[in-house]
């Protein structure tokens, strides 16, 4: 009963193919698309702009507001009801919290920067893709920020600690008869690049302390790769000719 080989043939510390592009939504102040395997996030940033309802205003600094949404046919199963739900609200909140430490909105009191993330296609790891996309979109919008945030999920499938779980691995008992009684832990992680501060750490499942420490080491490596992709995409937006 061990998870010998990953279902899609990846190495245990290997990410799915990552692809990033910025400037994909022409009407937004800044936008980015981030794909990791089949998961695809598009982030659009608007603002700083006036905030409504007014009571949300903060006279000391501008606020960041996120909206995460999966598109109706983005999943592999049933149609997803459009609009917000409990899960989307939570993810919106954690995206906002994971980006807040890097953005500096002190020059924009009483204003808001809105981030909208839409997912046209999902295959697990959506909040991580959303964070990576949103961080790039903020940079393109010219919002002052001290660093970029990059994110990847790690986890434990059966007895193996792996990086970047896909939907099949998260539901291993359905897809792999050998692991019928297997347990899965899914740990999305977001980090600030320079300081390696963790701005998002959630977990679904069970994992031992040793495995968690090891998983976070793997996450660090994976995040490095995501960061490199983000930087490349941002620089490629302004070609030298």
């Amino acid at each position, binding site marked *: 009963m061990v998870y010998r080989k990953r279902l899609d043939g990846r190495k245990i510390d290997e990410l799915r193919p990552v692809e990033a592009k910025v400037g994909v939504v022409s009407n937004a102040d800044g936008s980015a698309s981030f794909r990791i395997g089949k998961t695809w996030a598009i982030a659009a940033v608007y603002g700083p702009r006036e905030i409504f309802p007014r009571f949300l205003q903060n006279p000391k600094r501008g606020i960041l507001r996120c909206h995460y949404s999966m598109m109706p046919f983005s999943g592999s199963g049933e149609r997803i009801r459009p609009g917000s739900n409990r899960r989307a609200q939570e993810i919106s909140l954690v995206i906002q919290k994971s980006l807040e430490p890097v953005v500096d909105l002190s*020059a924009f*009191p009483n204003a808001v920067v809105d981030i909208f993330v839409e997912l046209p296609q999902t295959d697990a790891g959506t909040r991580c893709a959303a964070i990576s996309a949103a961080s790039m979109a903020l940079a393109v*919008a010219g919002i002052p920020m001290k660093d970029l945030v990059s994110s990847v999920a790690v986890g434990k499938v059966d007895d193996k600690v792996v990086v970047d779980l896909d939907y099949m691995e998260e539901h291993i008992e359905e897809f792999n008869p050998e692991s019928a009684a297997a347990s899965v832990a899914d740990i999305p992680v977001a980090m600030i690049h320079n300081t390696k501060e963790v701005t998002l750490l959630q977990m679904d499942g069970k994992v031992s302390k040793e495995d968690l420490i090891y998983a976070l080491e793997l996450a660090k490596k994976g995040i490095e790769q995501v960061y490199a992709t983000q930087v490349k995409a941002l620089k490629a937006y302004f070609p030298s*000719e």
Partner: protein
Amino acid sequence: MSTILVQERAIVVPGEALAEGMDYLPGDNTYREQERIYSKVLGLVSLSGRVLKITPLAGPYIPKIDDKIIAKVTDITMSGWRVDTATAYSAMLNVKDASSRFIKKEEDLSQILAIGDYLVVGIINVTSQNLIDVTMRAPGLHKIEGGRIIEINCQKVPRVIGKQGSMISLLKEKTGCDITVGQNGLVWIKGSTPEQERRVESAIRLIELKSHLEGLTEKVEKFLSEVQ
């Protein structure tokens, strides 16, 4: 021993290290963390003396005193007009700053400036909370009549104007249009024909797209001679 880690005019991302050591100083859009200077925005590196700064490639307009901007009247109040500045903050145009003539107390303010009118105004005061006061009582400030207004990335405004106004005079000369560029990124174009206005607009879009490259004026000159 201080070293600079990036080249002049290189594109840097937020959080990218620019220099190491205390000999360099952090300028606009940069910050120091211990020994290193980092970028705070996506932009181009420029080094003047020992000061490192970043010219942002995009970003919001930050209102400054004496800036000339283009604004739209959104409301009429007891003491003047509220105008939209295309930022997160609206501005106030007081009755006494609106015109050089005396406006009587009982006068209908909408007869002077109506809601929806566009104005070329100057900023006279900005508070820490970004409350803005504007005026129309200076040369070159007026109500806009006719023509068209386009919105551009406000960080590109200096490039649309050019060094000592070289770019804007080129545009005016080649198309015969009257062009006013607001620091907030709104541009008013008025020409004899809509075709000429369109020409200016597409030239400005070209400037926006290629502004981070060298030899911009030549590119625009070539573009204008090709597109008639």
